[in-house]
């Protein structure tokens, strides 16, 4: 399902215009980020939870140039399925 279909679907169910709906999606993403930045887990019942993980820096070899490079540390978002959802799709 692409973005257009998804937004149209949600907009229809909540009775808002698709453009408004997309704005709200952006706001939701923003709020999610704010919550995650404070080192919290966002739990969506029946689906899973979003959390942040810090990745340490590491040395890697660039396959095209063959040179060794240093990848900097970073923070990433991780999504983990809940056990109920896991059982549902298996």
């Amino acid at each position: 399902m692409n973005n257009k279909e998804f937004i149209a679907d949600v907009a229809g169910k909540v009775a808002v215009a698709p453009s408004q709906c997309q704005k709200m999606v952006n706001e939701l993403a923003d709020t999610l980020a704010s919550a995650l930045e404070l080192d919290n887990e966002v739990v969506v019942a029946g689906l899973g939870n979003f959390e942040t993980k810090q990745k340490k820096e590491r040395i890697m070899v660039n396959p095209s140039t063959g040179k060794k490079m240093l990848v900097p540390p970073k923070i990433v978002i991780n999504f983990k399925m809940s056990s109920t959802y896991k059982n549902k799709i298996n």
Partner: protein
Amino acid sequence: MAKGKITLQMLSEMMANNSGRSKSSVEAFVRVFFTTLKDALQTDNIVKIKGFGTFKLVVVSARESVNVNNGERVNIAGYNKITFTPDKTLKDRINRPFANFDTMVLEDDDVRLIEGTPSDRSEMAVEEPVTVEEPASVKPEETLATPAPAALADFSEAKEELPQAEEKSEEPATVAEEESPSAVESELPKDQQSPADDEPELAEPKAEPAQLDSEPAKAVTAESAEAKFKRGKRNGAIIAVLLVALLAVAAFLLIPRLTGGEEQKETEANKVAVQDSIAKAAAMQAEQDSVAQLRLEADKYEQVDDGDYVIVGVQARRKVRGGLTLQRMCRRIYGTDEYVPYVLKLNNMKSPSEAWAGRIISFPKLEKKDRLYGNNH
């Protein structure tokens, strides 16, 4: 490090506050959003949401692995899972504390390549931006860097006093979103009001804007971003230890209550024990039979002298195709290339280079030596 759990309801509240929309409409929207997502994932296997990210249903195939305790091959069943890759905006937003970091090339004589593992040297990330950075790029980075230490200060401060921080830390967090130098000044007095007043980290956001005028931003940002993250986590760890200590005391008090129920369970345990021993005797007999059989088979083959395994037959025969190595063929058949010496022995080869294209190689069936010959062989 205890992470606070945010429910959908709390998320809706935050969103309503941030956007100025009514709570009821936001709640309905959030609920519909995730229900639609769930349904869509069942009909299509991929849902892409602009501004958010992509959810994909991935089928993980079954794979052969090795039981770490006894070296036996085990099968891990296949399953379905959902993966989420955040959108660029979301990814960058979360990675803001490390926004100024870039991958860089390491020359062969670089110190980091010799000393220890990268994880020990993550503090050293401080040095590299100073040396690599060009003077022209310092200025734009300076303005971007200033919200970062403040944001991360909130990151760790909020962890320490969660219930209070829930409301108060929202303010500095939202302020941090405005990426302009003026935001830093207005943020500092707010920091003073927030709960963790006596935190040493508080001194740093104030000191940094002054330093930034004279030094390149990256070095200081890097140090504070990384160190604060870790310090915050360390403090969180101390709290976790205290909680564990409390739980231990509670458990200690509950033990007398648990021992009362043991008499009932004993008679049931007796019945089960008898059944178990019958089953065990039958299993032992079956095992002895198969071991005797296998020993006969093993005698037909020349064995590897100091190996843990015994060749008891031929498991498979493969023709070597161009570019294939013996290691790769082993991995395909056994899941590991540990057994290459046994393959060599069975095919009377001195080295894997004898596996030329077109040659047919026999892959042995292996049994653990301990099983066939006991511990002393």
